[in-house]
């Protein structure tokens, strides 16, 4: 009988064996349940409906129409910059036309209320890479970034995993609609100091994920005052800026800076991406816009690890420089998202469920705290499991977003057809009816 010889194992790195990649969180467990039993209108009408994925599928037809008229093949036959030159282009500055296109698009989204210089646009393969890259530049291992809760679960990985940087939460709660207050910022800063942790910056998401709401101008001004007084950075992740339901309600930090003549702007950096507004997550199009020259230079060098495919840059440069197309897209996209939002809010209200008043994003922030057995995280997870296995909806529990108030859930509504959304709302309605009936009989 052969004897099993144990293979000597060589350790992987500490980073590799840590769980900071975050995939053990419930945020992802729901995805697994969906993967095993995915809803399909015809083939699997009782499957799990995916409401945990913030994707924008409401405006694809507009993109498809554009592409029908502007074939990539015509680009490739171009004499001055055809396929060959495109395939060879690996300059980490990115195509000049692409940077110009991104700058223009960002201006249009902000109604022309802020100007963007194409030379300050740094390209990265997605906002995931942009956020990690900025963290490497702004903080040393062991330092911290302050992030208002609730926040996008991916930040735990993107900002901390390979960088060794910590996140210290800025607690926001339902008592004031989860708005960020100077007191909360101070408290978080002091908490970090008491643990001997150096705070290097504040990271906000505006419009907010998961709240689905924009940050008020006065709040932005307070945050800017705060970071200036502490001499730290401000990263504004504006990835949902084109997904506000009306053009006027979104105020970008860029506008606030312009209004104050760019005073103290060297500490401000904006992250953007086309994954949400244009619904192109597969293309990996992220950008960093920094008002700090040194950050721009360093970020550009670091982007070597994560450049955007020149093929994709070329396609999007043409598309986004077409102002007729972009103006129509932005307007139509907003209208459709607003309609979707109204549909889900009304549907939930009819079931006796309230949401945070939202005005942006691809999701709503639903309040199920009245349904909790106890106001605890454990109760929230129990409720979440029954939503997943009984109601067959994958929604995201607030605790995975580090929300301090239990019972809130993020529900995505733009990654499905209206019919599917209606099915989801019906399921919720039935679920709430059953609960009412149970309560009455008890």
């Amino acid at each position, binding site marked *: 009988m052969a004897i099993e010889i144990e293979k000597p194992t060589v350790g*992987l*790195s500490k980073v590799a064996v840590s769980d900071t990649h975050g*995939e053990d969180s419930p945020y992802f467990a729901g995805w697994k349940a969906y993967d095993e039993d995915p809803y399909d209108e015809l083939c699997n009408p009782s499957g799990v409906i995916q409401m945990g994925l913030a994707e924008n599928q409401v405006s694809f037809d507009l993109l498809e129409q554009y592409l029908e008229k502007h*074939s990539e093949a015509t680009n490739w036959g171009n004499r001055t910059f055809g396929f060959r030159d495109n395939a060879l282009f*690996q300059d980490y500055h990115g195509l000049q036309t692409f940077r110009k296109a991104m700058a223009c698009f960002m201006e249009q989204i902000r109604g022309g209320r802020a100007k963007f210089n194409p030379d300050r646009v740094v390209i990265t393969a997605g906002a995931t890479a942009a956020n990690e890259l900025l963290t490497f530049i702004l903080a040393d291992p062991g330092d911290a970034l302050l992030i208002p809760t609730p926040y996008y679960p991916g930040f735990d990985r993107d900002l901390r995993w*390979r960088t060794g940087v910590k996140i210290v939460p800025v607690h926001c709660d339902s008592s004031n609609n989860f708005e960020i207050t100077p007191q909360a910022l101070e408290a978080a800063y002091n908490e970090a100091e008491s643990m001997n942790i150096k705070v290097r910056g504040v990271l906000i998401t505006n419009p907010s994920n998961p709240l689905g709401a924009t940050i008020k101008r006065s709040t932005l001004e307070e945050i800017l005052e705060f970071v200036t007084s502490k001499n730290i950075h401000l990263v504004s992740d504006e990835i949902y800026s084109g997904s506000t339901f009306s053009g006027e309600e979104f105020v970008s930090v860029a506008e606030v800076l312009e209004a104050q003549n760019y005073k103290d702007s060297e500490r401000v950096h904006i992250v953007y991406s086309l994954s949400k507004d244009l619904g*192109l997550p597969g293309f*990996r199009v992220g950008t960093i816009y920094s008002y700090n020259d040194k950050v721009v230079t360093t970020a550009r060098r670091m982007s070597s690890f994560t450049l955007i495919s020149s093929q994709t840059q070329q396609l999007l440069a043409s598309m986004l420089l077409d102002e007729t197309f972009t103006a129509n897209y932005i307007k139509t996209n907003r209208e459709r998202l607003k309609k979707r939002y109204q549909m889900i809010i009304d549907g939930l209200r009819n079931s006796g469920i309230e949401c945070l008043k939202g005005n942006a994003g691809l999701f709503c922030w639903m309040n199920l705290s009245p349904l909790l057995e106890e106001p605890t995280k454990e109760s929230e997870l129990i409720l979440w499991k029954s939503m997943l296995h009984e109601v067959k909806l994958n929604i995201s529990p607030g605790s995975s977003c580090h929300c301090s108030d239990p019972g809130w859930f993020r529900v995505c509504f733009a990654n499905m057809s209206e019919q599917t959304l209606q099915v989801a709302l019906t399921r919720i309605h039935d679920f709430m009816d059953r609960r009412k009936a149970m309560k009455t009989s008890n």
Partner: protein
Amino acid sequence: MEFLSKIATNNGHGENSSYFDGWKAYDSDPYHPTNNSHGVIQMGLAENQLCFDLIQEWIENNPKASICTPEGSNDFKDIAIYQDYHGLPEFRNAVASFMEKVRGNKVKFNPDNIVMSGGATGAHETLAFCLADPGDAFLVPTPYYPGYDRDLRWRTGIQLLPVVCESSNDFKITREALEDAYEKAQEANIRVKGLILNNPSNPLGTVLDRNTLTDAMRFINEKNIHLICDEIYSATVFNEPGFISIAEIAEEGAVCKNRDLIHIVYSLSKDLGFPGFRVGIIYSYNDAVVNCARKMSSFGLVSTQTQHLIASMLSDDIFVEKFIDESMKRLAKRHSLFSRGLAKVGIENLKGNAGLYCWMDLRRLLKEPTFESEMELWHVIINEVKLNVSPGASFHCSEPGWFRVCIANMDDETMRIAVSRIHKFVIQKTKLDQATTRKQYKRSKLEISLSFRRLDEFMMTPRMLSSPHSHMTSPLVRARN
């Protein structure tokens, strides 16, 4: 407190290296056949431009490969939404199949072990993050690609320790050199986590023979360290002795005791000539590494638009075989043109059979066998001969006088012009050196300064005097000062 991080403010980005000075000279005065025929010819960029006609033809005949054409637009939505870090299955299958073909189908690659990255640049960094902690080290044979200094060290905090290779045995990697490097690390209390091999080698343009690969395999097994094999130039082997991939050795149970130690880095930037598309690949035999690297690939996925194009192209077996074959022939021809051209003026290259460059031996043109002399010679080649070549020092070569010259990133005519410029330079330099030597016999101060002045007149051109890179003007100017 510094406003930016240590990583942001240190030199880990590597751009202060001399490697980039030549690029700057080229950027400010680029050669063009009609508009700027006296400009600097770029021979410092290892790009493969020899087979674009074949690619162009395929592209035109396969509009479905693009999701942005009428023929391909049906796929647009699904492709644009797909952000799964596993990558499109058809992409992974096509890449695995391509890698097998390049290796003459002597090995098999499992598509499930293929992980995407932001080019090979991203692949190297990701592997470093997976395999080593800050302060740990990888051993890397010299001379090596300067980008490794940034890719493997900058944000990871790991160290690179050289395994010194010498011209006396054609820069082969010896067991002694490996042991030597390892021991030095031990003495300095540095933990070695792995060995990097680049096969075919940049900058040498040679392939590793079976003995070297086997020795390296035994070495890493004994020391229980990882082996990262960068095979980015695998399809640029144009001559015997042919390419042996580490994958072949990994499949030999007698030699390879632990496949969990073996990882391959690949990319389409060199073999296909698509550096802009950022198609980097990690292939690991270690499931834990595959899992970890895959999670990390979120930071550098390949655009699905590009995955789709590549999947179509590389699954076209007829095209792939024709491409590999034709590419080999054209590289062989280009290499021969360049080598023979140099041989005419007595310049030798290291005998190579791969890569997009030659490893040129200019030792006899050095004033002294020092790196200062190499730097002087290099500045002359850039500013006077107007060729951007890469000095051996930037590759951490242990001996001065070697230069890497890229030969596949230009057309035949430009290559001929480059060769003729080298001819002129070598002939003139030889004459001047002889003249200088004769004058020196007289040991007269006046005569020495006269000959210097003659060299000045030869060397100094109005362009050089007004060059924005005045810190790089003739070393003789510095000598005068």
